[in-house]
């Protein structure tokens, strides 16, 4: 059997918008088959995964709270991936931001350093989160730019390092002395906690970061010379150098933005959702955001929608664990299938596929 790809003569915006949708439908179909094999009703599972989360106010809030870090990280990743830099360590940058920002929440615990009031703590925490994530992303960026070390491997290795460091911090120096030896820190003061948007809900202020970042990023990509440089550096690096753009600076900036947004997501998670620092602060947002970035075709608006879709599968997956006793890892597997479908659909939007039997090349 041989597969031939024939470039489509024209690009179609409609086809490019529909291709992730088609991928999602195919992935859901594959998931349905898997559920059936596990002996559950496909229709019920679909209902639990994709319909129920959208029909209850409580779970809609949960979706927003989960989508927000995914979107923040994925928009940052879009800067890297557009520039053809493979930062796959957003999970580590998320942790670094959460840890550095969370540190301020810990040291200001119980009114410490709040003689001038607590108004400065939250902005400073967010800033520290961004700085923490960006600095952590600078390690693979600098190694890549000056020593040509593969950023793929270094950024990924640093995820494990970040996880282990956080584990050490929370079990060691940061442990709550009155916490009955549980590996947790003290709870943040209200001044260090992102406020809830309305009484009785779970939506915190950090949820608003995502739409703001999406709008700003969309403008940067479409209208500014910096966005132009990032796109150009990824699409034709030689042309970018010919244009007089400094590819090293672009790479460092893309990594800084990517790490900074992941760090912001991390500190928002710690300060808004968790309220203290734990040994584990992410259910794999940094990796799922890679799927979100591709599902959104690396465009900020697409990522916004993609982030919501993936958040639904997270929330639906939690519900399915309870309602159908489906294993939680089904969600992870589904996300993998989804990414594969998205990548395949993206090709089919640009090429026509011809399959012939016999012959190979």
């Amino acid at each position, binding site marked *: 059997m041989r597969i031939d790809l024939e470039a489509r003569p024209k690009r179609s915006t409609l086809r490019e918008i529909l291709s992730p949708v088609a991928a999602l439908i195919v992935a859901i179909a594959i998931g349905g088959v898997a559920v059936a094999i596990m002996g559950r009703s496909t229709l019920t599972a679909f209902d639990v995964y994709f319909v129920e989360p959208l029909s209850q106010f409580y779970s809609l809030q949960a979706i927003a709270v989960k989508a927000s870090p995914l979107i923040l990280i994925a928009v940052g990743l879009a800067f890297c991936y557009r520039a053809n830099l493979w930062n796959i360590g957003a999970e580590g940058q998320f942790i670094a931001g959460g840890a550095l920002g969370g540190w301020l929440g810990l040291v200001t615990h119980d009114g410490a350093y709040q003689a001038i009031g607590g108004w400065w703590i939250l902005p400073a925490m967010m800033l520290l989160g961004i700085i923490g994530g960006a600095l952590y992303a600078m390690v693979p960026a600098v190694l890549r730019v000056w020593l040509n070390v593969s950023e793929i491997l270094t950024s990924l290795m640093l995820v494990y390092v970040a996880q282990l460091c956080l584990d050490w911090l929370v079990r060691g120096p940061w442990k709550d002395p009155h916490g009955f030896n549980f590996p947790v820190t003290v709870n943040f003061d209200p001044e260090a906690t992102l406020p809830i948007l309305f009484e009785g809900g779970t939506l915190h202020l950090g949820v608003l970061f995502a739409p703001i970042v999406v709008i700003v990023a969309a403008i940067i990509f479409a209208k500014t010379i910096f966005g*132009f440089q990032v796109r*150009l550096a990824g699409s034709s690096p030689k042309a970018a150098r010919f244009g007089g753009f400094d590819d090293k600076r672009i790479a460092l900036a893309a990594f800084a933005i990517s790490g900074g947004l992941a760090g912001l997501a991390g500190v928002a998670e710690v300060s808004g959702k968790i309220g203290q620092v734990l040994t584990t602060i992410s259910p794999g947002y940094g990796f799922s955001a890679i799927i979100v970035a591709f599902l959104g075709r690396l465009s900020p608006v697409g990522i916004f929608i993609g982030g919501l879709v993936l958040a639904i599968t997270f929330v639906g997956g939690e519900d399915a664990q309870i309602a159908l006793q489906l294993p939680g890892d089904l969600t992870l597997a589904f996300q993998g299938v989804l990414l594969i479908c998205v990548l395949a659909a993206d090709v089919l939007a640009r090429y026509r596929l011809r399959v012939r039997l016999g012959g190979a090349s």
Partner: protein
Amino acid sequence: MAQSDATNEGHGAATPLLAVRNITKRFGTFTANDHVNLDLAQGEVHALLGENGAGKSTLVKMLYGILAPTEGEILWMGAPIRLPNPNAARALGIGMVFQHFSLFENLTVAENIALVMPSSQKLDDVPDKIAEISRAYGMGLEPSRPVWTLSAGERQRIEIARCLLQDPKVLILDEPTSVLTPQEAEKLFETLERLKAEGRALLYISHHLEEVQRLCDRATILRLGKMVGTCNPRVETPRSLAALMVGSEIKEIRPAGAHELGPERLIVANLSLPSPELHGVALKNVSASVKGGEIFGVAGVAGNGQSEFFAALSGETLARSPNAIVIDGSPVGTFGIGARRALNAGFVPEERNGHAAAPDFTLSDNIVLSGHASGGMTRAGFINAALAKEKSRNVIASFDVRAAAPDPLARTLSGGNLQKFVVGREILRGPSVLVINQPTWGVDVAAAATIRQALLDLCAKGAAVLIISQDLDELFEICDRIAVIHTGELSAPLPARSTTREEVGLLMAGMGGADHAH
């Protein structure tokens, strides 16, 4: 046009060795070959003539089994055959020497050749076989050398040896002289004459008409994928052959006319740079100066440091000392391309797609690419898209760029049209210094004429123009002085009007006057 029956009979073969009947090849909506016919007799050298994009390479790729015809048939000694892959073609006795070489840089000569030997051939015996054929044809191949260390001429000899080891009946050569010095080409012709005498049939692709007249018994001419006809090139003139190829009389280029040379606008002084890439060329003590109103040509065989020289001139690679490169009196050796553009220098690199232009960007975006720092193209970090579109329309109109849409993606343009766009983009900025690498490489004749004319007009306005080109005809046509680059060294410039091709050819082969004497 003379019909070819007479020459055909001259070879006395009733059935041609290899024949093509009504062959058509389509890529999507594009027809690369449209009902082409061709006969190839034993012991003949048959030329396949045509402009860039006429469909010559497509046709021979079908004869070698790389592409499959959409319609029509290929006959081998009168019987229709199918060639599912190049192995099938080789098994019949068809060999091919590729224009851009089908070699593996990081493998040795022996490994490159062993790859296509039949599987009965023991790997350990290959070096001996190579030594044998290398002696027989005077090729001087060293089996254990990695290919990346070899010159273009040596690489071509590997390709030829690889074919000859399989004792082919038909040998296809795709633009074999395009990367050779005149002297190396001479050596190639001797080998080809010998192969012809051995009774092999040669299909010779070229657009160098003198070569074809000298070497070939018959010529088949393609234009825009269609066959124009077959003729005896020896009874035609280069002019009539060219007219057949292009389909119309060729536009004469108006010479720049008498004008005063201005002050030195571009000076290169003792420029030395290590090779930026693994298999690149280091520049050694390069010096040159170009006056306003002058066109300075840099000749040389591909891969002798042309792209490295261009990168040093453009500022994509920085020199160690500011004085190594001086533009209009400003030492800029350590300045980037942006600063050099700000001094009103313009640059056109060799590669259109991916270097001069970003293929997946629109033409107006490609205006921003090289013009973002000048003329209010950006304000506070935001791009003035309307201005970019306007400038793009200007280039399209002034340089007759044919495109399917008002602001298409660069990659949708044909080679000639994209080249007119990237040259026009720089020329319309009115540069005082223009550096251009391979201005008409792979471009159709009409577009090449437009570009050369624009360069002459620019220099008539007082600009200094430096052209790097492999095409000696082009350099002799428009340059005032010609220097030759060889293994990263630049010769002293020679006045174009009082220099012969042979002199330049010797320099291209690395044999300067002094070496030539003994």
